């Protein structure tokens, strides 16, 4: 069944990117989509859009519609409009500002409350710590981050730098894989109990993400 999914030429996925103000959401997206970086991006007002096309494999192009959502919490329920029909999420924090990691819990909860997969499960989300290039950035212990991902239901966590272009592709790759898996699951009918087990499996995936990240930490160290 899964292989029949992959035969489709093109998939379009809507991914929302949230997190506190000035954690670098726009910078991550601009780096990912256009491979540019600037310290002069204006604060996002409302929402900004970008499109990233990925040649996923020989048979499939994945188009990611990235919704860069303003970080200031003033919208109330308005964000519901922005979150609608999203199939993946990225929550960003600033590794040089501890309090932005504290807010992650709130952002994830906000996503889970406002958007669900068709099968009623939360959409797959990754957690990104940005600005690893800054001297003030702090890497939290992997075990702590794994536990946080497990608790909040993140697919994985990644330390990135939009400035140095470090680890962003890996992070997004992980998210897209998970989105595709979910869609393959859904295509399989979703009547099997496997779907119900998914909550338990999110814990595992958190650990996977953590494991992946241990490699990536080395990577960013090299940069």
């Amino acid at each position: 069944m899964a292989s029949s999914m992959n035969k489709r030429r093109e998939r379009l996925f809507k991914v929302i990117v949230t997190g506190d103000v000035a954690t670098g959401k726009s910078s991550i997206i601009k780096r990912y989509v256009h491979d540019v970086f600037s310290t002069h991006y204006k604060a996002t007002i409302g929402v900004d859009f970008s499109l990233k096309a990925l040649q996923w494999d020989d048979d499939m192009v994945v188009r990611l519609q990235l919704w860069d959502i303003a970080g200031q919490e003033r919208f109330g329920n308005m964000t519901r409009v922005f979150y609608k029909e999203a199939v993946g999420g990225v929550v960003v924090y600033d590794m040089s500002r501890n309090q932005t990691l504290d807010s992650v819990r709130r952002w994830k909860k906000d996503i889970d409350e406002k958007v669900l997969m068709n099968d009623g499960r939360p959409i797959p989300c990754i957690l990104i710590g940005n600005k690893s290039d800054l001297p003030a950035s702090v890497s939290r212990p992997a075990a702590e981050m794994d536990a946080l991902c497990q608790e909040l239901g993140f697919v994985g966590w990644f330390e990135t730098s939009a400035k140095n272009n470090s680890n962003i592709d890996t992070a997004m790759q992980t998210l897209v894989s998970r989105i595709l898996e979910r869609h393959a699951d859904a295509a399989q009918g979703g009547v099997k109990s496997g779907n119900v087990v998914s909550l338990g499996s999110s814990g595992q995936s958190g650990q996977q993400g953590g494991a992946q990240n241990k490699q990536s930490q080395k990577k960013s160290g090299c940069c």
Partner: protein
Amino acid sequence: MVFRKLSRPGSARRVSDNVSDASGIEPLPQSLSQAETPPSSPSPASPPLHNIHPFASASSSTTLPPVSHYGLSNASDRAAPQHERPGSHYQEPDDRRSREGTGLPGDNVNGSNSNPMLSAAHHMPSHSSPSSKSVRLGKLDKLLSSNTIDVDALRNVCWSGVPQNDSRPRVWRILCGFAKADSLQRKRSEYAQQLIPSYYHDDPTRRSSDEEKMWHQISIDVPRTCTSEPVFRIPRVALALQRILYIWALKHPASGYVQGINDLVTPFIWVFVGEHIAGASQSLSLDVEAVSTLSEQDWLEIEADAYWCFTKFADPLAEHYTFAQPGIQKMVYRLEELVRRLDAKLHSHIILEANVQFLQFAFRWCNCLLLREWSLPLSVRLFDTYISEGPQFSVLHVYVCAAFLTRFSTTVIEKDSTECVMYLQNLPTSEWTVSDIDMLTSQAYVWKCMFEDSPSHLSNPTL
């Protein structure tokens, strides 16, 4: 064409004439063609509109023309709106109207733009034509040199742009209520001697946690405000912006600081800095070196004037920045409703075919009063209109947004979902000049007269 069925004696006839000349007119949508059936008696709600728009005598809300922007190039219609303009704005002597009403060829300063909707802009007098500008300049000089300034007359003259850049700082101060020399002095010293010391302290231990949060937010946003203008990177300009925003936010606890308010302050800083730079007001940019050498005394004046004028300007916007930003949501909703009436094809493309919500692109237009959509000097021109319009300017703003959006109609309807929203978020205005803003405001004015004076034209009475 279905549209022609609307022809009726009197004013409607002119429309059908125009329509037959216009190209690319789409058929009326179903809902509108239904309205053709009662083609006769004027509605009681519409009389004030007789002179404004050929459709004004039509009898129900559904008669609003989706093609109104095509049908307004008839010279005999062009001067009409001024007669009906509510309040005192724009009411200038008849001689001016008739003169400008015939100025169509000269109006074509932006001949490069072939969008037919622009013809509607010519419905209004051309404020960019030399004769009109010199007339208004004469009026402005006369007004500003008299002992008692007639503020309403000043609004009329400056609604379509302060005709002389040198006068802009003074005009903005007057229209924001700081006309008299003694009150200006009082306000300046109040800002420097009371507001700064009581509200703005560098010492973080003196700030509550909420205040600290706001301080931090403003500190993050100031360096990324108006990044296209190098002047805003000058440390003293950044300090002025930081202080104005922080003091304003503390004094407006219902909203506090909200992102986008930083953008709204920039035209005020720009204009009042320009006042202190010789020759600056004649150009579209400010010389960084010259600005860097201003004295602290100059800066305190600039900062105080910008603070007070911005405060006055932003007064009616309170609802825009409180939780969930209800004022902005209402504006966006109104905009959508308006576009649905004015350009049904565009509306249905955006909503149905491209599956884009107005909130996705127009939120920023309303939150930042279009400052993010073009260069700062163009916004300064737009603010001339808004400041002259007075506290109700946010009503006009929705019409300006509608004029802005419909101007790109032909391109928008060619774009599919993602492309459409990305285009709407970056409409090509880099080549725009002040006369493009003139056209938007003129168009907005025409539509505002049509809709605001006759609310039944909007389908939803609660709007």
